[in-house]
């Protein structure tokens, strides 16, 4: 047993992982319909969109900034898809618009040195408004076999959406852990000045991060269009702050440089597990929001407290080695 705990300690697993697993076990024990293949796949699938957006957000948070515009970029890309427009053109328009948002964010923040909260809050407002203007505020049905497959299709009994999200997650995981860009992202997040002095092109990296974050948000917007077979101008409105929450719950520090995509995966899945479990237990709808909030706070507090302890232990170890 102590061997196991020792090994676990060495792996430096964020507290959020334990939290997610505990909550999952809790629901599995008290509700027998919870831990079924169907429901597990459901939780996985329903985590996909938030996870996709949050992955982009993770990169922004890792360089010590945030990208609040992601939700609006989702909405804008979603309303770019219209019936009667060839799908390829619509997708190009969606990603094009997203790239524009990413570039504007990047230029304002990296080149013109405008505060990143202000910039992305402003582009969030602009995007949310533009999505309503473009669509005239109405949701339109989308009948596209391809998009429907992206959102609802299955490959060997598994939702394609899940496969796609896993591929994307692994891709970004590798990008962050193995590539030059990932190395730069972590260095800039750790200390911008050190990164700059050691010759990194900080501006370029920032631009890249905002561009990637926007493009991923556009993908999320398109996927949700596929899931619902419709394009809604308000589809992303809750996502900006929820994605940021998922990233931070997942243990990525808002100061940058610490954390990563793995934590974000658990952050998003945790939120879905809570929602799914409470719905399945038949907790009255009026109570669900309070309980969701309480669970989030309890898990965060437990996580932060254990991190603190770890820090103290870490210091002790350093001094002991001396």
């Amino acid at each position, binding site marked *: 047993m102590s061997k196991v705990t020792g090994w676990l300690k060495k792996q430096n697993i964020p507290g959020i992982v334990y939290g997610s697993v505990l909550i999952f076990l809790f629901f599995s024990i008290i509700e027998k319909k919870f831990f079924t293949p169907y429901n597990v796949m459901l939780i996985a699938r329903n985590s996909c969109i938030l996870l996709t957006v949050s992955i982009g957000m993770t990169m922004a948070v890792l360089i010590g900034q945030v990208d609040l515009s992601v939700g609006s970029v989702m909405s804008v890309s979603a309303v770019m898809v219209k019936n009667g427009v060839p799908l390829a053109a619509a997708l190009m328009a969606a990603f094009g618009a997203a790239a524009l948002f990413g570039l504007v964010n990047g230029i304002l923040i990296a080149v013109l040195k405008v*505060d*990143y909260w202000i910039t992305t809050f*402003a582009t969030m*407002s602009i995007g949310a408004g533009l999505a309503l203007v473009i669509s005239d505020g109405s949701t339109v049905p989308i009948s596209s076999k391809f998009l429907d497959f992206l959102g609802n299709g299955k490959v060997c009994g598994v939702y394609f959406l899940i496969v796609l999200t896993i591929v994307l997650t692994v891709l970004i995981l590798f990008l962050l852990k193995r590539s030059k860009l990932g190395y730069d992202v972590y260095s800039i997040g750790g200390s911008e000045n050190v990164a700059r002095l050691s010759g990194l092109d900080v501006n370029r990296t920032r631009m890249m991060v905002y561009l990637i974050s926007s493009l991923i948000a556009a993908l999320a917007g398109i996927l949700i269009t596929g899931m619902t077979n419709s394009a809604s101008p308000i589809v992303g409105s809750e996502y900006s702050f929820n994605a*940021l929450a998922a990233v931070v719950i997942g243990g990525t520090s*808002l100061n940058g440089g610490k954390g990563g995509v793995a934590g974000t995966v658990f952050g998003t899945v945790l939120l879905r597990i809570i929602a799914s479990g409470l719905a399945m237990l038949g907790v009255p709808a009026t109570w669900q*929001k309070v309980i969701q909030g309480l669970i989030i*706070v309890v898990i965060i507090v437990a996580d932060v407290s254990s991190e603190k302890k770890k820090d103290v232990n870490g210091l002790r170890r350093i001094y002991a080695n001396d």
Partner: protein
Amino acid sequence: MIDYFKKNVDFLSRITILLIIVAGMSVINPPAFLNWNNLSTVMFQQAPFTILMSFGMTMAIITKGIDKSMASIVVLASMLSGSYFKNGNLAMGFLIALAVGAAAGLLNGTLITRVGVAPFIATYGTDFIALGLAYVVCAGRYIYDFPANFRVITNGCFIPSVPNIALVTMIIFILLWFLTRKTIFGRSMYLAGFNVDATILSGIDAKKVVTVVYTINGLLAALVGVLYMARLNAADPNISGNLCLDSIAASLIGGTSFGGGKGSVSNAVIGALIIVFIRNGMNIMNISTNWQQAVVGFVIIFSVFYEMAIGRLTKKRMG
């Protein structure tokens, strides 16, 4: 004079943006927009709520945090105190509302300073809990039809032709301006936002300062809840509407920086006025509501550039 200008570039540049917007609206639709009735309605009846909220938001941002829970505290405080106000028990109503606000604020402050949760996440959690509790308390029964002696708090005019809500906002503004600009607490607050380690090293109890800031926010939100009830003659869980995003936007237009240590309550007033005037003007011109949010976004960016340009200009001129 020049010194004054240099020192207050921030504030003055905001005022000019406000004037540009007001002038623009006035040119487009003079009879409806540019009359005392409209201007006073916007400034004295609609803006105070956004202004009060953006005071709290600004102070949170100055300490390098953010308070996402204020709008939900508004809702919870009004749902819990509403029935007392309805029965004419004003003292009890105020007591409960302010207690709720202080408790929620204290929870935020404690989570942030003692436990070490990031402000965004701490207030995100409180936001869920407060709004969720409001749903539970409400359970579909809105509170409405308040007695006249309660509604006077917002709508009455203690000073002729100045509604009480404007008076309250002015008093709070003066108090907060004094608190943030002229006291040790205020200086510690800015310092804590600028560099928390240095603040602690210089012997200031930064944790206490930040906790107090979030508690003040909770109290402000509770006050807004009470005043809002009196204005709307109702308490319901949707009462907060745009308040959360508008107060962030007002703080940002007011030049408050998320980097911490920069911003002021007087700028927040101007920021809030800018937003409320934009909404007012666009309503009057019967422009689709869809455009409002986008315009707010453009104005935020414009105000940033404007400040940069003015800043550069004054630096060049006056070295």
